[in-house]
């Protein structure tokens, strides 16, 4: 009986402390997926995100003197759970981090009504970059179309693309189909033959049919838009069919260290575009190590820390923290509202100097956003697998903004028309 009473008292105390901790602070929920089929790729990202915020709380006492209440809501990458989490957190959240293209598509139309910014760094719907139409959605530092453009530019540097054959191996899912409109327009302009090869969700682990097609068609390059189990499936299959690895390029979600570890040496030459890069010497890594990892507050394992995905998690949280910081400065208050944060995310200026100040040297390309440009179009690096880890294989490559923005504007307009009445930011004159 005594035990029960003690437990009850502890629980009551916990509840009290829990509620006081929630009462103040910047509530930034993350719709995480540490369970389910995509957990392997999700865990390092989530750890990176959580660790950066924990570091800010431990080192600086939060942002602008207010603690960050960074809470995870588990979705298992399921859209249904994601919507449940969104509804649960939207009451006091200043931001939504949906973490899947499916959840983003679901939440996107609600943003105008709920007025909470969506932060989807490097994923989601590419036309979200048009800030006039998608007032509440941000995909900084760059969109999938930027990614596709960087890959094409890199390939053009290798030689003229006209007359070449490029296979586009993608997940048959909104995420995988995302770059198709851009690649199609480019295929026409540059004169290469685009060969879209979809991989169904059920075929992710067994892509023998797709690779048979690739072997028959003999494309010069394979561009891969894969996620989760599809990456490992494609890479092992490519090794098995002896496809020249140096001609295979993936999007940033296909550049997961663990997927390449399986093939090791044989994966040498595989490339992936990325807007983040692990820099073990960056000051932020030392801070995270000192305040979070050595203090035992992190869930991350030691070998995760140097990976591309962990550092990408750090960068994502850094973008959010910077948005909060900018908003706090501008509105001159520490406890900001969702619409204040929207202003902050619209006025990010991640210059080289600011990145050094934040300790993120070399971890993300510099970029800036505005009310009309919610993506920043930062550009990215091509990373190459050297048999043991990813190394930079190119300088910073900038996307072809002209072609992209044209496509963005037309697609954003289409979306707004299909979802009329859709409020557009009239004040934005840029």
């Amino acid at each position: 009986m005594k035990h029960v009473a003690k437990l009850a008292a502890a629980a009551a105390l916990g509840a009290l402390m829990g509620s006081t901790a929630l009462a103040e602070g910047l509530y930034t929920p993350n719709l995480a997926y540490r369970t389910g089929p995509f957990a392997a790729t999700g865990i390092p990202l989530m750890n990176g995100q959580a660790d950066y915020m924990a570091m800010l709380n431990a080192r600086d006492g939060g942002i602008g003197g207010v603690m960050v209440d960074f809470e995870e809501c588990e979705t298992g990458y399921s859209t249904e759970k994601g919507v449940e989490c969104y509804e649960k957190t939207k009451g006091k959240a200043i931001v939504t981090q949906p973490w899947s293209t499916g959840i983003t598509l679901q939440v996107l139309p609600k943003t105008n009504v709920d007025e909470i910014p969506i932060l989807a760094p490097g994923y989601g719907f590419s036309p979200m970059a048009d800030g006039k139409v998608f007032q509440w959605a941000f995909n900084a530092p760059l969109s999938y179309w930027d990614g596709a453009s960087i890959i094409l530019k890199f390939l053009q540097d290798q030689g003229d693309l006209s007359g070449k054959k490029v296979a586009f191996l993608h997940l048959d899912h909104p995420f995988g189909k995302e770059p198709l409109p851009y690649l199609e327009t480019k295929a026409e302009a540059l004169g290469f033959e685009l060969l879209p090869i979809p991989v169904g969700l059920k075929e992710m682990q067994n892509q023998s049919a797709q690779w048979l097609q690739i072997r028959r068609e003999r494309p010069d390059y394979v561009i891969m838009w894969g996620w989760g189990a599809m990456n490992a499936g494609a890479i092992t299959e490519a090794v098995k069919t002896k496809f020249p690895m140096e001609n295979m390029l993936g999007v940033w979600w296909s550049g997961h260290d663990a997927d390449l570890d399986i093939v090791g040496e044989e994966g040498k030459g595989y490339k992936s575009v990325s807007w983040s890069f692990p820099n073990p010497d960056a000051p932020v890594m030392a801070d995270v190590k000192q305040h979070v990892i050595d203090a035992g507050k992190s869930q991350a394992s030691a070998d995760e820390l140097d990976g591309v995905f962990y550092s990408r998690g750090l960068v994502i949280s850094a973008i959010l923290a910077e948005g909060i910081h900018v908003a706090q400065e501008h509105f001159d208050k520490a406890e900001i509202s969702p619409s204040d944060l929207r202003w902050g995310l619209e006025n990010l200026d991640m210059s080289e100097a600011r990145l050094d100040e934040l300790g993120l040297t070399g971890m993300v390309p510099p970029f800036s956003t505005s009310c009309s440009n919610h993506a920043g179009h930062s550009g990215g690096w091509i990373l190459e697998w050297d048999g043991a880890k990813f190394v930079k294989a190119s300088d910073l490559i900038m996307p072809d903004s002209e072609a992209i923005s044209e496509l963005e504007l037309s697609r954003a307009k289409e979306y707004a028309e299909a979802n009329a009445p859709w409020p557009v930011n009239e004040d934005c004159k840029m």
Partner: protein
Amino acid sequence: MLYRTAGQFKTSYQADQALFPVRQDAVLLGVVLLFAWVIFPLTASEFAFQTLLIPILIYSLAALGLNLLTGYAGQLSLGTAAFMGVGAYACYKLVTLMPWLNPVVAILFSGAFSAGVGVAFGIPSLRIKGFYLAIATLAAQFFLVWLFEKWGWLYNYNASGAIQVPNLEMFGVYVAGPQASSVVQYFVVLAVVTLMTLVCINLTRGNLGRSWKATRDMDIAAELIGINLMRSKLTAFAVSSYVVGVAGALFVFMWRGAAEPNLFDIPLSFRILFIAIIGGLGSILGNYLGAILIVGLPVLLNTLPEALGLPISSATVEHLNIMIVGSLIVFFLIIEPHGLARLWALIREKLIIWPFPH
């Protein structure tokens, strides 16, 4: 005590065959309806609408549709999700081709397409039974999801391949799309579900329902007493697919707001089949109880640690949740293999004769 039936005399055949021969049943239903129609809408939060009330109603309706086919007519089906998809895509095409159409009419009409597809895939049931039929309906599942992916016209050639619900107005109020408020959507769902339930209760008690039950219990005997098996089976497929299709349209238009083809894949079919089995095959009430257990309980369990102030990480809660719900399913099936509806029937019988055990 509360359920004492003493003194309730039936003086006419009509009274004896009424929907609720026992007065307390009618009162209980009245209370449930009062909660559903008045008290919940007045008190529920946005979270409760979006994660509990609306999904439970929609899943119940889908399970009800499946239950007509599997529980009443004895035709095992694994294609429920695909038929829901037909309803959803039909509704999407209807409202985008004819924007002036009343959304509720569109939802009710989209069930007709699903019924047609259901009949087509029900034809094998005339020759095969049981597990073999389940495999044949599985073909519907694979084929239709493939069709939703490949046939661009269905999703108006959207680049993402997903359908997105536009804002739809009815009498000056938004009922679907991002602008619609949850309480309005709840009322639309509740009205459709109430109507469908009423129709289904009466169908299963009538001539058609009796021929379904005869087909289920022994098809040769049914044929011998003059039931046209083809008619009985195909009407079961048609009515079931109609209800499932309407549930699918509600699923996307009144709740999800957007859908991609793989949403309608096998896991959803299984989920609805589990609701129907755990709720109780061959019952109407069971679908609601099953949906509360399978759809509602995990949501409530998820919020529990936070409400109690227990510092458990969200991922751990998710793992615990799966374990608890899984063991509850096993527990309920052990204590009552015929489902929750049967469990309730036993409780009710005990209550009627209480306090005497016999």
